């Protein structure tokens, strides 16, 4: 890697100050699982890297009155082990468990996964199916965005150059909501998703209530499938309804063909994974 100046942030306030001082070219180092790979391949180095990896106040996982607040610097391994996440948002545990391997999960952070803006990220669909939002902090203060507003385009989020993603909040209304996450990759470990799907739904007298379906790796960003959700809402939960929801969701995506898979194959797999995710929600109810 080419040389750069390294500054270590003491806390999140200091991190925001360092970002403001060193300008839009400064890069933030959290888990390093994306940044270091990028820096090794880059033609030009950033002048400044701001190391936030040991900022303790960004690592907290806690229940608050708004919901479950997960610090952006919580690693995927810490989330997997967290008793409160396992209890309140187990679908997120399923999703982060599918990321990389043990070594990458010990370093990689939830915030890092989200700011990558990669449509194939694994945490995004699970969080979107839980109606999670993100907290961004900058010199102008804090703001909260729903995930759907946060993701803009491939590798582009609403995070401004002088902002820091500080926390992810899962609302209380999603606690205990049956949910499932499924990922299809070319292998079981260290796999990039060809398609990943998260679904969540309440059941009311055998009918879907507030169903949510989120799709990853099949559109420019992680997306919801509102037509499939509208089809399910209030409808009796039957085998045919799962399958039809899968077919509708497949039509709402815009997968691409690449060396890993064709668009047509991904579309068919959206239907399969959506159906299976909904079945899992029902069986865990």
């Amino acid at each position: 890697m080419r040389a750069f100046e390294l500054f270590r942030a003491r806390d999140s306030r200091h991190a925001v100050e360092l970002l403001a001082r060193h300008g839009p070219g400064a890069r933030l180092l959290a888990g390093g699982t994306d940044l270091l790979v990028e820096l090794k391949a880059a033609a030009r180095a950033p002048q400044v890297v701001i190391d936030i990896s040991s900022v303790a106040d960004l690592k907290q996982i806690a229940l608050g009155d708004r919901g479950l607040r997960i610090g952006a610097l919580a690693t995927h391994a810490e989330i997997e082990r967290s008793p409160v996440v396992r209890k309140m948002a187990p679908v997120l545990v399923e999703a982060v468990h599918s990321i990389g391997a043990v070594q990458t999960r010990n370093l990689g952070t939830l915030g890092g996964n989200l700011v990558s803006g990669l449509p194939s990220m694994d945490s995004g669909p699970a969080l979107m199916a839980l109606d999670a939002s993100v907290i961004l902090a900058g010199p102008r203060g804090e703001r909260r965005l729903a995930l759907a507003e946060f993701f803009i385009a491939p590798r582009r989020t609403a995070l401004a150059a002088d902002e820091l993603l500080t926390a992810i909040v899962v609302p209380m209304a999603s606690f205990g909501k049956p949910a499932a996450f499924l990922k299809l990759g070319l292998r079981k470990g260290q796999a990039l998703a060809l398609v990943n799907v998260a679904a969540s739904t309440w059941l009311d007298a055998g009918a879907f209530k507030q169903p949510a379906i989120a799709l990853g790796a099949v559109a420019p960003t992680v997306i919801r499938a509102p037509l499939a959700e509208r089809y399910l809402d209030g409808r009796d939960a039957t085998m045919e309804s799962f399958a039809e929801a899968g077919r509708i969701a497949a039509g709402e995506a815009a997968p691409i063909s690449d060396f890993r898979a064709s668009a047509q194959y991904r579309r068919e797999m959206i239907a399969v994974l959506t159906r299976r995710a909904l079945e899992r929600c029902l069986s865990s109810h």
Partner: protein
Amino acid sequence: MPELALTVNGARRAVTVPAEMTLLALLREVLGLTGAKLGCDAGDCGACTVLVDGQAVNACLMLAMQAAGREVLTIEGLAHPLQRAFEKHAALQCGFCGPGVILSAKALLDANNAPTTLEIREALAGNLCRCTGYSKIVEAVQEVARDSPRGRT
């Protein structure tokens, strides 16, 4: 150049390294600990796996400066039944993956001293081996788990 103090294999070390040096380069080039290998340099192969504060990480994905004040364990610092079991079961061929695999296995056994075969394979999913097909590696880990004193962490 920034100064760095850390513990490596139980010994306190103080070095001066460029900010952009990875932990892997620090171990291999500054400290002469060449057990951790440079494979893919991108966190995919696991040949660079070391334990930092007991957790298996890719040393190629950490800056050396991020290890400040922390404890690093490399294969050179290990005297563990796993090493004898790997010999007994012929679990290595070329040996390149070995240090990383053994450290990942140690981290597994420290957290879970009775892993299932699936748990062993999942724990080692980040360590690629091109020679062996993994079966003897898994057998060696299973033997150590079986023979470990009950209740040991």
